[in-house]
C-alpha cells in the first residue's frame, strides 16, 4: 500500500448462497484516481461497488479506507454514491429531499448549498414540488445532486450514464471532471467503454467475479477499447 492508496481491497470474496459473485479480488485505488470498472453483466461490478459503499459486507477478505474500517460513520461520510436506485423520496419535494440528506450528513446551515445545487441541476423552479410529479430526467438530476451534495471525497458511480437524458449526462460528466480536478477519487462501473475511458485515469476489468485487468488508462487502450475489452473479458474462455 503506497502513501497515495485510499481504497484497499484485499482477498475479497462474495457469495450469494453457493454462487461466488466475486473471487479473491485484490485492488488498490489511489487518491485522486478516476477508475473505470468495466465488465459484462454479472461480472461483479455492482457487487463490488455495493461493498465499497458499505451496503454489504465481503464474505471473505477486507475493504479498508486508508486502513480504517469502511462501515464506520466517519468513513461513510466520505463516500457519495449513485446506484441503480435514485434514493429519492417521491412524497418529499426536491428541496426537502436535499434537506433530509443534509440532516443525515450533519451539514451545518445547508440552505445555501441546497439553493446552489437546485440551481445547478435546473430544479430551482420546481424546488417545492413533490418529486413524484417530476419527469425521469428531473429525478435523475436530483439524484446526482443528492450524491454530490455532501462533497464526498470518494464517488462510487454504478452505471451512472445509463438511461440519463442529455442534460443529466452532461451535468454528470462535468461533475466527474470537476471531481477529478479537485483530486477526489471516482470509481465508475459501466458498459459504455468510450465514455468511461474519456474520463478515467485507471482501468479495471472484472470477468465472472475475477479481476482480469488492472492498469492505467493509456493512449493505446483508448485507441482500440473494444479489442482491449474483448481480450480481457474472454480471458477465462
Amino acid at each position, binding site marked *: 500500500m503506497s502513501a497515495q492508496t485510499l481504497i484497499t481491497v484485499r482477498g475479497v470474496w462474495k457469495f450469494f448462497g453457493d454462487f461466488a459473485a466475486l473471487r479473491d479480488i485484490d485492488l488498490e485505488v489511489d487518491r485522486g484516481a478516476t477508475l473505470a470498472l468495466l465488465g459484462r453483466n454479472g461480472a461483479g461490478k455492482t457487487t463490488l461497488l455495493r461493498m465499497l*459503499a458499505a451496503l454489504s459486507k465481503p464474505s471473505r477478505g477486507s475493504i479498508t479506507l486508508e486502513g480504517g474500517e469502511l462501515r464506520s460513520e466517519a468513513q461513510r461520510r466520505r463516500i457519495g454514491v449513485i*446506484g441503480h*436506485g435514485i*434514493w429519492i423520496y*417521491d*412524497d418529499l419535494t426536491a428541496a426537502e429531499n436535499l434537506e433530509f440528506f443534509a440532516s443525515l450528513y*450533519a451539514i451545518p446551515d445547508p440552505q445555501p448549498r441546497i439553493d446552489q445545487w437546485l440551481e445547478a441541476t435546473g430544479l430551482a423552479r420546481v424546488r417545492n414540488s413533490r418529486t413524484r410529479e417530476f419527469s425521469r430526467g428531473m429525478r435523475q438530476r436530483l439524484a446526482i445532486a443528492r450524491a454530490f451534495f455532501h462533497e464526498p471525497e470518494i464517488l462510487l458511480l454504478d452505471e451512472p450514464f445509463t438511461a440519463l437524458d442529455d442534460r443529466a449526462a452532461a451535468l454528470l460528466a462535468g461533475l466527474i471532471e470537476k471531481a477529478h480536478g479537485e483530486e477526489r477519487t471516482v470509481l465508475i462501473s459501466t458498459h459504455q467503454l468510450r465514455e468511461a475511458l474519456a474520463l478515467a485515469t485507471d482501468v479495471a476489468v472484472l470477468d465472472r467475479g475475477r479481476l482480469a485487468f488492472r492498469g492505467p488508462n493509456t493512449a493505446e487502450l483508448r485507441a482500440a477499447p473494444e479489442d482491449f475489452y474483448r481480450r480481457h473479458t474472454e480471458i477465462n474462455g
Partner: protein
Amino acid sequence: MGFLRSALAITVKDLRVELRSKEVINAALSFALVILLLFSFTFDPTGEETRAMSGGLLWLVFSFAGVLVLNRSFARETVNDCLDGLIASPVSGAALFLGKVLVNTLLLLLLELVCLPVFGVFYNVPWLGIFGQLLPVLVLGTWGLTVIGTVFSALTVNVNLRELMLPLLVFPITVPALMASVQLTTLLFNGQPVEMLWFRVLVGFDLIFTLLGLALVELVLVG
C-alpha cells in the same frame, strides 16, 4: 447528540411522507374501526362479560391495525431503493431504528386516540375519567409492539410474503407486553387498582427489547 438528531430526522421525514400520502394511517384506521364495529354487533355492549374482556378486545384491534403500520415501516424505503441511501449514510443502524420506532409509535398512538372514543360509544365503556392512568399503559404497550415490529419490519423488508410473515414473527414475541397491556387496561376499565406486577412486566419488556433492537438492527440491515 448526533445520534438523537439523526433519529429525529428520520422520524420527521417519515411523518412528513405519511401526512402527505396517508398511505398507512387511512388503511390502519379504517381497518381498526371496521373491527370495532363488527365486534360491537357480536357482543352485547352492556354485558358484564364484554366489560371483562374490553382490554383484550381493544388491544386485539390495536395489534392488528398496528401490523399494518409496521409492515410499511421499512417497506416504504424500498421505493427508489431509499433504504440503501439510509444504510450508506453516516447514520448508525441504531439511530435509524430509533427514528422508525418513534414514528411508528406516534402513528399507532394517533390511531388509538381516534379508536378510544369509538370504542367507548360502541361498548359503553367510560374511558375519559381514567384517561390519565390509561395513557401510560397505551404508550408503554404501543412502544413494546412497535419495537418488536420495527426490528422484524427491517428483517422482512426483502421477503416476498412480508405482510404474512410480520404478524407471524411479531405476535408470539410480544405476548408478554400484550398480556400486560390487556390486564392493565381491563383493570382500569373495570375501576380496579392497577397491579404493579403487570406494569413492571411492561416496563421491563420495553427496556429489554429496545436495547436488543438498538444492538441488533445493524446486523439485520447490513449482515
